[in-house]
């Protein structure tokens, strides 16, 4: 039987790979747009050489399109950087709003590919816990992955966070297809290992079309075994 840490490491690598593949694909799309805009500028210049007048407005529009894509790429790279740094510290005080927002931003493209919309409802005040940011993001992604297959016809996953006692709770809601989802194999071994590692607990409520993860305030103090 494999060691729990091996499973967590393997799951983490898969998560990192999945996210970076999706993000770099998005960067490729941005580069493709910039490439076409630059190409169009070149085409216009060649036409100008042949005597066709250049419309300044058209040039302005192309320049604006490039600026817009550079700004988009900048946001994507910033998020990738935040994601990479989530593995810097194995234990850290975090605001769940930030963690959830980042996972959603990283997962949006993957969700869209499956025709799913993610609706995070963040809190105005910080929801702080002390945890392993990378492992928590990994767990949220795995649950999100499961939730996306349980939306039924609604095709929306609502995500909420709230303080619960000394810890916090994250809910995956609006899952109209939850009753039909393979709950006998959920959570699987990898999710169970992460739950244990994070001192977290999964609560499934089919009647409410949702499941929730209860997170310990400090995994150093409340770690479950």
């Amino acid at each position, binding site marked *: 039987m494999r060691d729990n840490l091996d499973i967590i490491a393997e799951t983490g690598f898969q998560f990192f790979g999945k996210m970076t*593949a999706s993000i*770099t*694909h998005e960067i*490729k*799309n941005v*580069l*493709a*747009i*910039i*490439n*076409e*805009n630059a*190409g*169009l500028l070149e*085409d216009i210049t060649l*036409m100008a050489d042949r005597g066709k007048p250049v419309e300044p407005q058209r040039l302005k529009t192309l320049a604006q*399109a490039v600026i*817009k*894509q550079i700004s988009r790429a900048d946001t994507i790279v910033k998020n990738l950087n935040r994601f990479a740094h989530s593995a810097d510290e194995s234990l850290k005080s975090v605001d769940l709003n930030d963690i959830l927002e980042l996972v959603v931003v990283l997962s949006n493209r993957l969700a*869209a*590919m*499956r*025709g799913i919309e993610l609706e995070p409802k963040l809190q105005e005040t910080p929801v702080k816990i002390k945890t392993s940011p990378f492992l928590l993001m990994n767990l949220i992604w795995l649950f999100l992955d499961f939730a996306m297959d349980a939306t039924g016809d609604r095709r929306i996953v609502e995500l909420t966070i709230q303080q619960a006692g000394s810890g916090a709770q994250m809910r995956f809601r609006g899952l109209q297809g939850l009753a039909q989802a393979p709950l006998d194999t959920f959570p699987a071994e990898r999710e169970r290992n992460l739950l244990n590692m994070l001192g977290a607990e999964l609560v499934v409520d089919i009647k409410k079309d949702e499941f929730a993860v209860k997170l310990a305030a400090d995994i150093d103090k409340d770690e479950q075994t």
Partner: protein
Amino acid sequence: MKIRVLLVDDEEEFVRTLSDRLTLRDYDITASLSGDDAIEKIKQYNYDVVILDVAMPGIGGIDALREIKKIKPLTEVIMLTGHGTVETAIEGMKLGAFDFLMKPCNMEDLDTKIKKAQARKAEHEERIRAAKVSDIISSPRSVLEDD
């Protein structure tokens, strides 16, 4: 007659700019932002070549390719791919795609591939036409009975 091209990609800005560039090269371009929309357009109109993004929300490039080949088998498809989806593009070749191109595209490559794809379609159409003519000449009665 201009080569009729359907350009399918969910990145609106990419579709708009590439459409402009291909129009400048004298292609007759129709743009589509999803696989579903592309399939509807292919049912209604005849295109010579479809440029199809592999990774799109909803119906993906591979499923769209299958549908296109079912609806209009002679229409040639060039798959567009990012680096992470080359294997999918190769799968597309096995399913009958004419060729594939990596994003960001090189315009000369794309231009050449579109022309080659259109030439292959024209060649297939010509062969079918010739076979029909040959049928009529060798057995005019059977053709009349068919009608």
